[in-house]
């Protein structure tokens, strides 16, 4: 995995494209993009992306490995599926965006301070602990993501939402102490460990 990160990429040669095809979820589709720009025009988050999907696909073909993998663009995807619905070539763009984000994260190239990434990691840690999301802990972790004082401010601002969630039984104070989970959390951890192994083995196979 580490040497994968070092992979040398020549411009407009297919090496990075091949790397993406081998390692990124649905990465096989990247080559089928015909650069029509429909996805870029359809994305509601479009204005906030540095590189819309169309451009990301072109950058992959152009061998811009660093730029793509360290980009925060694909982290902007909200999974609205607009682009997938419209792409005339049928590319599963949303999935590719998440695939790229995930791959960049795995390689440690993803932008550290990207909020979506931070949230995703917290969500994952929270979920995998017991197999169920602990809303209270997740909420607090989120509030204090950017430091203690910031956290207090956010918590106060969202006071009403929190109380309403408690009232509607969407959240429970008891969650603070352990909280609910799946029956066999050891089993779950074993499954996740195995899955990770398989994935890493797949990545290792690819030598860049």
């Amino acid at each position, binding site marked *: 995995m580490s040497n994968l990160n070092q992979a040398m990429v*020549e*411009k*407009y*040669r*297919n090496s990075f*494209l091949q790397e993406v095809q081998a390692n990124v979820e649905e990465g096989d589709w990247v*080559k*089928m993009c*015909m*650069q029509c720009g429909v996805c870029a025009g359809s994305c509601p988050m479009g204005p906030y992306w540095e590189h819309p999907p*169309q*451009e990301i696909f*072109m*950058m992959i*073909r*152009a061998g*811009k490995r660093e730029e793509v993998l360290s980009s925060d663009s694909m982290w902007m995807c909200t999974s609205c599926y607009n682009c997938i619905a419209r792409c005339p*070539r049928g590319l599963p763009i949303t999935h590719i965006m998440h695939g790229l984000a995930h791959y960049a994260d795995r390689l440690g190239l993803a932008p550290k301070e990207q909020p979506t990434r931070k949230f995703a990691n917290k969500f994952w840690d929270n979920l995998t602990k017991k197999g169920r999301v602990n809303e209270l802990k997740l909420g607090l972790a989120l509030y204090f993501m950017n430091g203690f004082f910031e956290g207090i401010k956010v918590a106060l601002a969202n006071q009403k939402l929190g109380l309403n969630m408690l009232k509607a039984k969407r959240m429970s104070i008891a969650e603070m102490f352990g909280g609910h989970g799946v029956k066999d959390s050891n089993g779950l951890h074993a499954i996740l460990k195995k899955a990770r192994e398989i994935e890493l083995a797949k990545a290792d196979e690819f030598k860049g």
Partner: protein
Amino acid sequence: MADEIKIGAYICQGCGIGDRVDTAQMAQVAQRDAKASIAREHEFLCNAEGVKMIQDDIDNEGVNRVAIVACSRRAKTEAFNFQNVAITRGNIREGVIWVRPDTDEARETTQDMADDYTRMAVAECKYIGVPDNSEEAQYNRTIMVVGGGISGMTAATEAAKAGYPVHLIEKTGALGGAAAKSWKRIPQKSPYRDLEDTGVAELISEIEASDKITVHLNSTLTKTSGAPGRFSADITTESGSTTTENFGAIIQASGYSEYDANQLPELGYGKSPNVVTQAELDAMALEANGGPIKTKDGKDINSVAFVQCAGQRSEKEGHLSYCSGHCCMSSVKQAMYFKDQNPAVDTNVIYTDLRMPGAGGEDFYRGGQEKGVTFTKGSVSEVVTSGSELEVKFKDLILNEDTSEKVDLVVLATGQVANSGLNIDEVGQDEPGEWQSNPESILNLSYRQGKDMPQLTKGFNDSHFICFPYETRRTGIYACGPVRRPMDMQQAIEDAAGATMKAIQAVENAGKGRAAHPRAGDLSYPIFRREGCTQCKRCTVECPFGAIDEDEQRFPQFNEARCRRCGTCMGACPVRVISFENYSVDSVGQQLKIVDIPDEFEEKPRILALACENDAYPALDMAAMNKVEYSAFVRIIPIRCLGSTNLIWITDALNSGYDGVVLMGCQKGENYQCHFVRGSEIAHVRMSKVDDTLQSLSLEPERVSVHEVAITDIERAPQIINEMAETIENIGMSPFKF
């Protein structure tokens, strides 16, 4: 016809005509004013009884000219199809009642219109006859195909399959042309993913096996003369021996040459052996024969860049301004040469606009992508050739940055240059008696207008690009393949089949003395009164089809089978010595003269509209079907082509008191729609001189207007007429009413 002229006028009351106009008055007008011998009304002229009434008059009363005053000449042609008599039509339905409101106010002017069209139909009748068969007509089923590439070979086999003998002329020592120099072809069948064999070998063996096809290799044409049905060609071999063969029709499939890449030094051509054209890469692939393609110095190729539009779609000096249509597909094909052999080879197609035409184009593009061919939207500025590596510098148009790629091989997608022979607009024909064969000519025609087929633009042979793709400007000679427009193999094959069908048609029509498209079946031909001719040569020069040669005494010599019956020569002739049995300066001139011109104080102006029968007239008919109204003051006469307009018609009209003249022809210029190609254009030039006539009569120039009208101009054609009516209202009536 020596018989005395006996005109019967038949006025229909059906389709609402009887309710709207006084047909009895029209019958009276026909006899009294226009001198018809018989005039009869019928309540439903096109039914069996009405038709029988006319036939009875022909059989028993000796009627030999029939004026049918009913619906448009474009309607009910089957019902009103009488043999051995001349027929004219007065258009009361589409021309009068459908374009005029049914009001008390309009009644009088509507009746005026109907009366005039009755007079006109009878007057025209007097001046036309039934054409005799052309004595020049000959029947020769043999078809000559010039060029042995994929187009020519397809044309030859198609003609042979239809039972027509073929002589196939090929300049080089082998059949196959550009296709034979290719390794594979772009797929022509679904799923359009994998490359196919060129099919050349099959075609050659089919030709060899056919007892109908005679192949002349290493041969060119040193002289072609005659006309459809009686072409004669001197076929000369490299060694100089000549045989003369006779043909009914000719197919020119002389193909293309690759653009000279030496004009592209900035793309590295000529500087490195590893910068090649598409044709050169195909030659390399042929040599590799399915194995890995190597550079010219025998090295492996790991990366290839395809530079699209090399020297094409560019306004730069020496570049081709057009798209050659096949090269994007060809680059995908050639990238597959590498990918199919070894998927690890990088192939990048750098394009500004990827154009994948045809049914399979898009699938083929996907096929390329599936095989890992990459596509980069970019414009290449330079190929740097220092050292063994090539660096392609380009602007990535998606990422908007100047960048470059290093590759082992660069392939330039250069375009097709038509092998259309001499540009006869630049290389004039030799004077009569001094004719000599020109080695640069493809056909070496003895025609007065030049040795090859005229070119439309960019060096391609003119073949009615927009409406009738195989109709060239030389009757009985059909162009197919890249000589008439850039195309790929699949298109060339289809093109060849189309041209072959046209050639067969030409053979059959010529045999019966009938005109070819667009007056297919017309038996008339130009009749020329030699005594009156001043040898001004206008007819010879203006004929869009080069039908007219010159005899030893420099008189025009009409080749009937080459003539398309457009009448351009008739319109051009200043002394009016050219006519047709069924169309003449008189047959139109007498119509416009018989129109009743009310005097100045009646406030009923008259507008003459001469409308092309191919587009403008049908447009007006369709306007009528849609009940689009137009001025009651117009009198419309259909003409064969605006090119047939003789200035005398305009002068006569103005002199006899018409207040305005409207001329409607087809679109001219590079995107012409004129059925006779140049007719409309020539007429526009001719009419630019009308101002002199107007000036000499002290009339306002607005009184004559010339328009380009398409068959779809259903609203616009009536509008043009109405605008003239308004103009007259503004400038006042003509002072020439007597």
